[in-house]
């Protein structure tokens, strides 16, 4: 919008394409994640992450598809999430010399918020995948879960493939978005497909480019090299044994990190600012056998800051006006009288 207002059609086209690309990506990986959670729900009958865990052993295919979804949404390079974030960043970096002062401050702040949200999304989906699929099952349903049928697996894998393809060949998507940007803004991004090796060039080759395909090829090539070298020279003996328990042999699943405890550090860092979270630790005195408790208070700042005051204001005004319902007939007549006199004096003065 800012670029369009300042008459930079190319920049506006880039920004709009980035936004539309992200909308496309979002619809792909968000539905993939929802299919995954649906599969988990059908398999275990549980939605609460605290009762899941270890599903990767029992539902490997769903776990893989869900993993691709989590990686895509956390904007990790070979996949599509990263490309739309990259395009948005290119739009931000594009031309800093906008005249309006407000925009001068707003655009870098946007960049900061974008980066913060990307990082937090990654954290959230590490928690989601880790607590649900990895570790040991925290309930009997999770332990007895079975893989879902192929009909529900198929859409997940198709979407996962789309995520990978859109991430690897972003040029295809950008060019398909081109008619939209021309119709709306008139300006458009340079055509991508013509370029060699299908790399994504937002403005001009000299400035910056990103080649999804080559990055993907690079990663697979180096993985193959590493695997070949390791299997060639290193031993490939394997032995199974119990995990390191640092001297407390307690196999109960509760000792694992739950979703709540996983998010506790981030909540302590950001929560106190955003949601006014407060943690109260109730540690019993030594010798007192009752369990220690940690309780957490969070407040939705938007709800308390905006909605409640508005409702209260309307309520107060309604109360104040409500008196008018219970006046006597004489007082109502007084209204008519005052209105009449007021209008007559107005007319007298006006004429």
């Amino acid at each position, binding site marked *: 919008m800012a670029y369009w207002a300042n008459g930079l059609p190319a920049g506006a086209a880039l920004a709009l394409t980035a936004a539309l690309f992200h909308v496309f990506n979002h619809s792909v990986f968000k539905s993939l994640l929802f299919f995954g959670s649906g599969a988990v729900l059908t398999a275990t009958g549980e939605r609460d992450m605290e009762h899941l865990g270890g599903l990767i052993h029992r539902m490997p295919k769903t776990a893989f598809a869900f993993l691709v979804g989590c990686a895509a949404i956390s904007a990790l390079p070979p996949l599509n999430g990263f490309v739309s974030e990259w395009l948005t960043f290119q739009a931000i970096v594009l031309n800093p010399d906008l005249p309006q002062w407000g925009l001068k401050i707003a655009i870098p702040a946007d960049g900061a918020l974008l980066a913060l949200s990307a990082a937090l999304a990654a954290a959230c989906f590490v928690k989601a995948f880790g607590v649900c699929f990895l570790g040991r099952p925290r309930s009997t349903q999770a332990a007895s879960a079975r893989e879902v049928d192929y009909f529900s697996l198929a859409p997940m894998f198709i979407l996962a493939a789309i995520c990978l393809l859109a991430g690897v060949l972003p040029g295809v998507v950008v060019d398909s978005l081109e008619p939209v940007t021309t119709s709306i803004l008139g300006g458009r991004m340079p055509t991508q497909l013509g370029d060699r090796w299908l790399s994504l060039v937002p403005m001009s080759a000299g400035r910056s480019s990103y080649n999804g395909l080559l990055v993907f090829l690079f990663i697979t090539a180096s993985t193959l090299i590493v695997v070949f070298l390791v299997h060639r020279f290193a031993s490939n003996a394997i032995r199974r044994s119990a995990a390191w328990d640092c001297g407390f042999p307690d196999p109960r699943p509760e000792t694992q990190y739950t979703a709540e405890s996983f998010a506790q550090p981030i909540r302590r860092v950001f929560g106190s600012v955003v949601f006014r979270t407060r943690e109260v630790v109730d540690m019993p005195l030594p010798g007192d056998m009752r369990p220690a408790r940690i309780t957490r208070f969070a407040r939705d700042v938007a709800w308390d800051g905006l909605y409640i005051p508005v409702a209260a204001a*309307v*309520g107060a*005004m*309604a*109360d104040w*006006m*409500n008196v*008018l*319902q219970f*006046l006597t*007939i004489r007082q*109502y*007549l007084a*209204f*008519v009288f*005052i*209105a*009449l006199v007021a*209008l*007559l004096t107005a*007319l007298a003065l*006006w*004429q």
Partner: protein
Amino acid sequence: MNLMAEAILAALPSWFDPLLGILLIPLGAAAILALLPGYRVSAGVNIAASLISLACAATMLIARPQSHAFLIVDDFNIVFILLNTFIAFTTSVFSASYIAHELETGRLTAWHLRFYHAMFQLMMFGMNLALAANNIGLMWVAVELATLTTVLMVGIYRTHEALEAAWKYFILGSVGIALALFGTILVYLAARPVVGEGLDAMVWTTLVAHANGLDPSLLNIAFVFLLLGYGTKVGLAPLHAWLPDAHAESPTPISAVLSGLLLNVALYALLRFKILLAANSAAIAPGPLLIGLGLLSLIFAGFMLYRRRDIKRMFAYSSIEHMGIIVFAFGMAGPLGNLAGLLQMTMHSLTKSAIFFTVGHISQVKGTQRMADMGGLTTSHPFLGWLLVAGVAAIAGLPPFGVFTSEFLIVTTTFARAPWLAVLFVFGLLLAFGALLLRLTDVAFGEVKGPAGPVSASYLPAVAHLTLVLAAGIWLPPRLVAWFEHVAAMLG
């Protein structure tokens, strides 16, 4: 369409004049009903009379009778006459079942019934006369007659609240009427030097013809009195006090008629004089006055809706709010503003009477009008509950219904001309919207409160009205739009 019209006209006997029809039939029915003892028969006669007057009004739509000194039918008031007779007919159907229930519960005795039906038709006569009157004096008398009859009907239950409401309505109404009369006299005075003394100085058509010649300053004073006089009858904000109590305490068919018809009649009278004023270039523009009053009543009613406990009183305030919107629209004037005002008025009358029909049955079933004591309607009485939900959605101005279209038109015209005014207008709308939905959720959803017995209700009228409003919301027939546009042009 006109093929069918010729067929009907040929069938009609030559002496039959529909204009006289809509006046004499209610008058005659009132006389008959006063004598009929039995409830079942009088209800039937009541419905029949209303149906015939509706038929007359419909024929008038096709073959426009020529107007003369005392009575007139032009594009402008045919809208009101048709709407009035139609809603009167549906109300009479509804009142048949409503009153039957009131008889069983003993709240009304047989003697009341005779009085009720006679007054009902007398009121119809008064309203039709007011709408058809060409002579502004005659119009005043007719409006006064209508007020008198409704006052008697409001007090019919003879409970303390009903009597107090009737008394308040009576006094405020009489003061309003007196001011309106003073305004009419001033208009006559302004017209006398131009048109000459005697009867034709009171005939509206001649007045409009000579409008430009009238003394502008006298017209302004007259308009002030008329605005306050008829404004009281329209229920605009500072003068509205009688409306909530009259609606809440009167039998529901009467409150449906009150908010559906009587407010429109008073508004019609006010608009007649607005046309007069608009035609006279030197006089002050009536717009700002109407906009001010309209906005004041919209926002005032919006706030008052929040603290209401009685369901009928809440919808009474919603009527004040909607009359505020309509007056605001006519204040904005211009072709689109007037069109929106007319559409909003029609939609409001249809929706509000439908709501009162449902509320009537609900209060009968639940035995109370306090919203706190009724809940979970959609579960205890699904059809009634969902009818109420549809009605409230329509009155709150939600999209599929016609009220939204008219409010949308109003907002567009206001934004085009005075954006800050539109902001105030939309604020008022949102206020009312919030209050209505807040109350609706208590009544319609949640767990069932109050008796859940079967109800013998006539759903037909309410359903008919809401389907009309829904149809208007989705598609307005081009003939209707052309007709309204012509009237809007007339309104100036």
